[in-house]
């Protein structure tokens, strides 16, 4: 089990470009494939991970590891998520200026960033779907309204993400 956690998050760690929410679809895919959590549990975990200090993706991985295999599961997930990126940073650190300016690297990033965008859009879509936001019921209408309000607060009023989560939680307690 620990080995499985380690290998899964090591692989995710190697390709976790874009940080934060871009890695969620990958984590979601692996969690579903292994049957570690339901989609609803995962979205709750992401919410709590987003409220904790530190990187969201690593926090989510720690949560999942802890849920699946206790303390050492969490530790394994944290190590596996961090190891690849730190190794790559150390590699880059020795010849940073040369590599970051190389046209090939620039081109690769130019092509990779749209993929990250697509992954994030897909993550939003699949979470909306699995949490009943795309159905036409009374609950989903309230949820949809909350979603729009939160998006407005983020885009127009530049609210801090944490504040949005806290306010939404408060509204949830009032509403349900």
């Amino acid at each position, binding site marked *: 089990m620990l080995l499985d956690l380690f290998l899964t998050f090591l692989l995710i760690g190697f390709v976790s470009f*874009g940080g934060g929410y871009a890695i969620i679809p990958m984590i979601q895919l692996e969690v579903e494939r292994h049957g570690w959590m339901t989609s609803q549990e995962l979205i709750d975990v992401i919410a709590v991970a987003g409220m904790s200090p530190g990187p969201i993706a690593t926090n989510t991985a720690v*949560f999942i590891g802890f849920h699946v295999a206790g303390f050492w599961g969490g530790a394994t997930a944290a190590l596996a998520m961090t190891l690849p990126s730190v190794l790559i940073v150390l590699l880059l650190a020795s010849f940073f200026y040369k590599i970051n300016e190389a046209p090939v690297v620039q081109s690769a990033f130019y092509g990779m960033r749209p993929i990250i965008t697509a992954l994030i859009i897909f993550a939003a879509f699949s979470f909306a779907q699995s949490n009943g936001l795309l159905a036409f019921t009374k609950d989903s209408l309230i949820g949809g309204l909350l979603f729009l309000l939160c998006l407005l607060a983020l885009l127009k009023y530049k609210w801090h993400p944490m504040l949005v989560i806290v306010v939404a939680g408060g509204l949830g307690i009032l509403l349900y």
Partner: protein
Amino acid sequence: MKENRTGTLLQICWTFMKISPVTFGGGFAMMPLMQKEIVDKRKWMSEEEIVDAFALGQSAPGSVGVNSSAFIGYRIAGLKGALAATVGMMTPTFFIVIVLSLLFLTVRDHDFVEAAFRGIRPAVVALIVYAAITAAKSSILDKSTFGLVVIALFLLIVFHAHPIVLIFAGMISGVAIHRVKRKRKNVSACKSQSEGKAD
């Protein structure tokens, strides 16, 4: 500095331990704090070097915060410095998350908590959409990049393509697109300004 090596490493570790618990909401939020601790207080690096560290942290996979810390640690004291910085960054948040997981698992079935999470779930979706909009702004630069987004979405939804495969395919496409564009530019330059721009 040689005789004071262990002291420096402990200092690095402790400095990042102090920064780590305050890094809410992703790596860039901690940049001002890093400048204060590392440039102003410890004078380990210049301000420009911190900006460079963040640029590098961003171009590697993983979290910007942990990556830039590892780089800063490396610059100060080599491989051991990188290790000290990473351990410093990881330890506090790791234990905070473990404690939160425990709390979360015990209170999850409470009505109160369940109600709060019913409000929070749409908010998380909004956060992800917001992240998508931010990413789109810096990634959709022209028709080719827009095309890549559309194709990737199509492959994800219809064929359940694996994200890792898509990321590598995207990198290869980026190199290919630039190569074609450069060739086109050369050709049109040879024709000597008969046309406008290719894109």
